[in-house]
C-alpha cells in the first residue's frame, strides 16, 4: 500500500511536470506571452489546470492501472504542449499524433468493447485527418495562402466544427470521464487557440469568415437541440460540446469578418466578439470539464449509458448536490458563474447589433436569435441531467460497491478545483481584461458591462454562500411526509431525465433524432460514407470473371499510378 502511494506520488510529479514544462519553456523562450502569443499562453495555462483536475479524478477513477494512466497523461500533456509551441514546424502534426495515440494508454483500465474501440478509432481518425492538413500548412511556403486554408481545415476537423463533428460523440460514448474531461477542457480548444494565433491575424479577407459564420450558427442550433433529446448522458454532453465549440467559432468568425472594417460599430463588434471568445472559451473549458467529470462519474458508478437508469445516483456519492451542480449552474446561466458572464455579454452585443444601422442588423439579428435557441436548449440539457441524476430520489436498493470515502475525497478535489474557477473568474475578469493583449480590444462600454457583471456575480455568490452557511431564517427542523403522494415515499415516483425532454420530442426532437435516440444528421452522413466506402465491394461483387481478378487489379492500379504521375508532371510543367 505504502509502495503504491510512493509510486502514485512519482506519477503525480511526472504528470505535473509534463503539463508544466511546456508552459515554463514558453515563458523562457522569448515569446510574447502578453502580446501576439497570448492564445498560446492561455492554452498552456489551461492545460496545466485541467491536467491537475483530471489527474485528481484519475486517483478516484482508476485504482489498478493508475501508473499506466499517469504515464499516458505524461505523454499526452507533453505532446499537447509541444503542439502549442511547435509553430509552423513538422513537430506540430507529429506531436498531435503522439498526443492522440497516448490516449490508448490513458484508456487503460477501461473494459474494451465496441464503444471503447470506436471511441479510440474516432479520435485517431480525426487526429490523423487533421494532422494531414496541418502537414500541408507546415510544408507550404510562409506566404502561400493555401497554407492558411489547409491549416483552417485541419483545425476545424480537430475541434469538431459543424460538419466535421461526427467523431466527437463517438469519442464521448466510450471514453473514461477523466480523459473526456481533458479532451473537452484542453484538446478541443487547442485548435481554436491555434486559429486565433496563426489564421485570424493573417487572413484579413472576410470571405472565409462569412462561410464559417452560418455553418457555426447551424452547429450551435443543431448541437443544442440534439443534446437536449439525447438519452446517453455522455453523448448528450458531446453534442453540448459541439454547440459550445461552434459558438466559439461563431465568435471568431464575427471577429474576422469585421476586423478590417473602418466603421466604428463593426470594429466594436469585431473587438467585442474577440473578448467574448476568450470568456466563452474559459466557460467551456472549466464548465464542460466539470460536467463531464461529475456526470461521467455517475454513469461509471451505475455502469449504464441511459440517463433514466441513473436517476438519483448522485445522492449516493456523499457530496452535496449544490457542489456537484456548479457546472450545471454555469450552463443554466445563473448569475455568479462563468456561463452567466458569457451569455450576458452575448446578449449585450446582440442589443448593440439591434442598434446598428438598418441593413446589417436585419441581416445579423435573425441568425443571432436562432443561435439563442440552440444555446437555451444546450443549457437545459445540463439542467435536466442534473435534476434527474443528482436530485431525483434513487432506488434504495441500489448498491455502489466501488464507491468509498477515499474516492469521494479525490472527486471533491477534482471538481472543486474546477468549481473554484467557475465562481472566481467572473470576479477576476475586469482585471484579466487589463492584460495588454486584451485591453486594446475592450471598448469602454464593454469594460463597464463586464464590471457590472462582476459586481452582480459577487453579490449573488456572497448571498448564496451566506445562506448556505447560516440558513438565515429558513432552517428546516421538522420533517415529515405529507399525504400528497398517496403513500409512496420517493423512488417509485422520482423523475428520470426523459420526462423533461420527451414532451417536446414531437414538436422539435423528432426532426433531429431517431426513435432509438441517434442523431438523424450524423447517421445520414455516416451512412453516406459507408456507401461510398462500399463502392469497391460493389465492384468486386459485380465482377464475374474470377480468373482474371489479378490482371484486373493490376490494370486498375496501373491506371491510378499513371494518373498520379500525370498530375505530378503537369504540376511541374506549370512551374516551368
Amino acid at each position, binding site marked *: 500500500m505504502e509502495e503504491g502511494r510512493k509510486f502514485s506520488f512519482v506519477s503525480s510529479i511526472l504528470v505535473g511536470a509534463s503539463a508544466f514544462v511546456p508552459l515554463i519553456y514558453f515563458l523562457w523562450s522569448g515569446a510574447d506571452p502578453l502580446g501576439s502569443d497570448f492564445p498560446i499562453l492561455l492554452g498552456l495555462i489551461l492545460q496545466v489546470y485541467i491536467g491537475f483536475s483530471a489527474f485528481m479524478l484519475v486517483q478516484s477513477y482508476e485504482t489498478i492501472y493508475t501508473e499506466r494512466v499517469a504515464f499516458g497523461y505524461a505523454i499526452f500533456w507533453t505532446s499537447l504542449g509541444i503542439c502549442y509551441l511547435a509553430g509552423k514546424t513538422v513537430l506540430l502534426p507529429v506531436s498531435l499524433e503522439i498526443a492522440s495515440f497516448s490516449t490508448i494508454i490513458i484508456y487503460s483500465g477501461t473494459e474494451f468493447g465496441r464503444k471503447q474501440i470506436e471511441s479510440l478509432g474516432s479520435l485517431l481518425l480525426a487526429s490523423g485527418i487533421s494532422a494531414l492538413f496541418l502537414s500541408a500548412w507546415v510544408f507550404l511556403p510562409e506566404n502561400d495562402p493555401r497554407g492558411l486554408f489547409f491549416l483552417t481545415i485541419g483545425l476545424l476537423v480537430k475541434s469538431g466544427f459543424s460538419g466535421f463533428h461526427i467523431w466527437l460523440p463517438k469519442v464521448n460514448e466510450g471514453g473514461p470521464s477523466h480523459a473526456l474531461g481533458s479532451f473537452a477542457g484542453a484538446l478541443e480548444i487547442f485548435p481554436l487557440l491555434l486559429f486565433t494565433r496563426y489564421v485570424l491575424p493573417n487572413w484579413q479577407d472576410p470571405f472565409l469568415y462569412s462561410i464559417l459564420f452560418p455553418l457555426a450558427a447551424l452547429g450551435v442550433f443543431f448541437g443544442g437541440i440534439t443534446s437536449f433529446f439525447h438519452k446517453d448522458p455522455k453523448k448528450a454532453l458531446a453534442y453540448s460540446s459541439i454547440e459550445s465549440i461552434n459558438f466559439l467559432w461563431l465568435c471568431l468568425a464575427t471577429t474576422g469578418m469585421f476586423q478590417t472594417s473602418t466603421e466604428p460599430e463593426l470594429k466594436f463588434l469585431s473587438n467585442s466578439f474577440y473578448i467574448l471568445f476568450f470568456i466563452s472559451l474559459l466557460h467551456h473549458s472549466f464548465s464542460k470539464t466539470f460536467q463531464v467529470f461529475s456526470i461521467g462519474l455517475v454513469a461509471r458508478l451505475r455502469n449504464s449509458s441511459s440517463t433514466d437508469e441513473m436517476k438519483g445516483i448522485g445522492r449516493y456519492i456523499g457530496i452535496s448536490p*449544490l457542489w456537484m451542480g456548479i457546472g450545471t449552474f454555469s450552463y443554466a*446561466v445563473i448569475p455568479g458563474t462563468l456561463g452567466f458572464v458569457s451569455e450576458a455579454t452575448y446578449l*449585450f452585443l446582440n442589443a448593440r447589433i439591434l442598434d446598428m444601422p438598418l441593413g446589417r442588423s436585419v441581416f445579423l439579428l435573425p441568425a443571432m436569435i436562432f443561435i439563442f435557441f440552440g444555446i437555451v436548449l444546450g443549457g437545459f440539457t445540463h439542467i435536466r441531467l442534473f435534476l434527474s441524476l443528482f436530485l431525483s430520489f434513487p432506488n434504495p436498493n441500489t448498491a455502489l460497491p466501488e464507491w468509498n470515502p477515499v474516492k469521494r475525497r479525490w472527486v471533491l478535489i477534482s471538481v472543486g478545483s474546477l468549481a473554484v474557477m467557475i465562481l472566481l473568474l467572473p470576479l477576476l475578469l475586469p482585471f484579466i481584461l487589463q492584460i495588454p493583449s486584451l485591453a486594446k480590444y475592450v471598448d469602454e462600454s464593454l469594460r463597464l458591462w463586464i464590471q457590472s457583471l462582476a459586481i452582480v456575480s459577487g453579490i449573488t455568490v456572497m448571498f*448564496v454562500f451566506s445562506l448556505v452557511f447560516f440558513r438565515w431564517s*429558513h432552517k428546516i427542523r421538522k420533517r*415529515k411526509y405529507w399525504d400528497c403522494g398517496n403513500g409512496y415515499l*420517493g423512488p417509485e415516483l422520482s*423523475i428520470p431525465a426523459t420526462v423533461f425532454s420527451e414532451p417536446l420530442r414531437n414538436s422539435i426532437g423528432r426532426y433531429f433524432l431517431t426513435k432509438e435516440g441517434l442523431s438523424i444528421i450524423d447517421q445520414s452522413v455516416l451512412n453516406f460514407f459507408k456507401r461510398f466506402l462500399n463502392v469497391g465491394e460493389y465492384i468486386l461483387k459485380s465482377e464475374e470473371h474470377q480468373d482474371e481478378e489479378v490482371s484486373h487489379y493490376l490494370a486498375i492500379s496501373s491506371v491510378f499510378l499513371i494518373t498520379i504521375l500525370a498530375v505530378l508532371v503537369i504540376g511541374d510543367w506549370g512551374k516551368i
Partner: protein
Amino acid sequence: MSVNSLLLIVYQILIFIGLPLVLGGIVRKVRARTQGRKGPKILQVFYEIRKYLAKEPIDNPNSGIFAEISPIISLYAAIMIWSIVIFEWAPFILIPFFLALYRFCFVSFAMESGTSFGGLGSGREILLSVMAEPTIILMILVAQSHIELSLTPVSALIGVLFLLLSFVAILAELAKPPFDDPRTHLELTMVHEAMILEASGRTMGYLELASQIKLAGLLSFLIKLALEHSKLFPLGEFGNITRELLVLPGAVGLAILLGFWEADSVRRKWSWVPEFMGLCFLAILILGTLVKLS
C-alpha cells in the same frame, strides 16, 4: 438633484414596496367580480404571506440543501428583477438571468422532495421555459435597444402586436392561462402549484412573496417596454417623468386585464403549448425585424 428627481425617487420607492402587495390581490378581485363573486380583499395575498412567514416550515424527509436555500434565493432573484425594472440600476438584459435563477430555485425545490407532483410540475415548468425563454430574450433585447417606434398607423400596429405577443410570453412565464391554471387545484393539471405543493410555513411564504414580486416585475416591465420605445412622450425631463409616473397605472391596468383573462379563459392541453410558443417565437422574431424596419 432637482425636486422633481427627488419626488420621482420617492414615487419609485413607494411603487417598489407597495405594488407587489396589491397586484396579485387586484387580479383575484377582478377575477371574482367577473365571475359574479365578491372575492377576497385586495390585500388578502399580503395577509396570507404574513401568516405563512410566521410559521415554522415543515418539509419532506427526502429534501436537503435545496429545500432550505431555494425559497430565499428565489425571493432574492425576484427582488433583483423588480429592482432592475423599477430603478433601472442595471440593464434589462440581466432580467432573463435572474428569471433563470428564480426558475431553477422552484424546480430544484420541487425535485429534491421526490414527490410525484414535484417532478410533474418541474417537467412542465422546464417545457414552458424552453419555449418561452427565446421569446422573452428577444423581447428584452428590444427593450434594451434604442429603437423608437414612430407614430404612424403601421408602426403603431406593429408595436401593439409585438406587445401582445410579449404579453403571451409573460403569461407563460407567470404560469397563467392558457399555459397553467392556478385556480383548478387539480394536481394533474397544475404547473406552478404542483411544484410548491410540499411547501409549508415560512417556505411557502418566501415562495409566494417571490411569485408576487415577479408578477409585479414582469407586468411593469411590459409597461416600460411600451412607454420607453414609443415617441409618445417629448424628450427631456418632462417626458422621462411622465413615463415613470405611468408605470403604476399601467401595471394596475394590466393586472385588471389579467383578472378578466383568468376569469374567461382555460388551460389548454400540453401538446398545444410547444406549437403555440414556437409560433409566438417566429411571430415575435418577424415583428422584431419589422419594429426595426419601421
